[in-house]
């Protein structure tokens, strides 16, 4: 199975970039999970955690409101402020 190219971008820097198997985020309408092969999507995110799962491990970043775009297995998560202290 192919994997996702994930970019986590804050207003003043690129926080994280890499491959992942799954991305979970919280949109206005509720929790959203993205797997490889997802249709192109633009979603508005609310304050909460973004989980980026790679292999067995999961990276968690806390964001304030932002948005997320999925396009051909490329996921871009954009937020004004990102607390990435838990990203290794």
């Amino acid at each position: 199975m192919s994997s996702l190219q994930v970019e986590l971008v804050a207003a003043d820097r690129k926080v994280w970039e890499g491959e992942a198997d799954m991305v979970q985020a919280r949109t206005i309408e509720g929790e959203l999970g993205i797997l490889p092969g997802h249709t192109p999507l633009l979603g508005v995110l609310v304050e909460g955690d973004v989980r980026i799962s790679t292999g067995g491990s999961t990276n968690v970043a806390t964001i304030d409101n932002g948005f997320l775009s999925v396009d051909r297995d490329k996921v871009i998560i954009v937020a004004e402020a990102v607390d990435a202290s838990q990203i290794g």
Partner: protein
Amino acid sequence: MGAQTRVYRQRIRAVNSTKKITRAMELIAASRVVKAQQRVRESSPYARALTRAVSAVATFSNVDHPLTTEKDDVKRAAVLVISSDRGLAGAYSSSVIRESEKLIGELREQGKEVVPYLVGRKAVSYYKFRKREYAQEWTGFTDQPTFEIAREIGETLVARFVQPEDEGGVDEVHVVFTRFVNMVTQEPDVIRMLPLEVVEGEEAPEPDDVLPLYEFEPSAEQVLDALLPKYVSARIFNCLLQAAASELASRQRAMKSATDNAEELVKKYTRLANQARQAEITQEISEIVGGASALADAS
């Protein structure tokens, strides 16, 4: 030591200490401008992602958003002037203020009422000194702007733009700032921020890089609603960062020429001091010789 040489020596000391200060300021500005440029670069992934998302929504949905709609009858226009907090940066502040005056003049000629918003103490003191009205000011950060401030400015301007006209809302928002071209060139520039012209020419998509048919969550209108104010803030942030880099670059240049001038002055005064000392010595010798020969003649 004669009075004249003492004055020259004093001047040399004074110029030397000024030179030390300007040299230090030059070095500080030089190291900060590199950081400021880096911050401009670091903010670009965010701006790029936003631009792409906004143009995706605008391309694939026929949504008319208040922020993108041109008004037929423009009565009032807001102008955001981005200047610096501190001086000693050459013509930086005055050229951006001059550009804003030009724009305001043009807007007035078109029969629009102008509402100024000011960034930086230099612009504020320019307006206060002339006892002119302005809507709001933001000061104290111009060499290191943060995104929070950009967002605050963006929200203020968007709120004013959305307000109905008869309640004091504006129909246009212009931004005057200094574009950072490179280390030697910084140009004052005007952009019209609102109403937004969607699909900016800055990041033209590649021909084969067709934007996909997006699904919107929750809906195209709501996505646009959330994105456009962010887009405005991101563009204002970019203007602030470029202005900061320009401020530091022109300060570095101004301080470099001040240091060079100080060196020139020291050289000139040293020559004059030497000349004065030489003249003094010559005078003393001729006095001694004159005195000796007078004694010889008397005896």
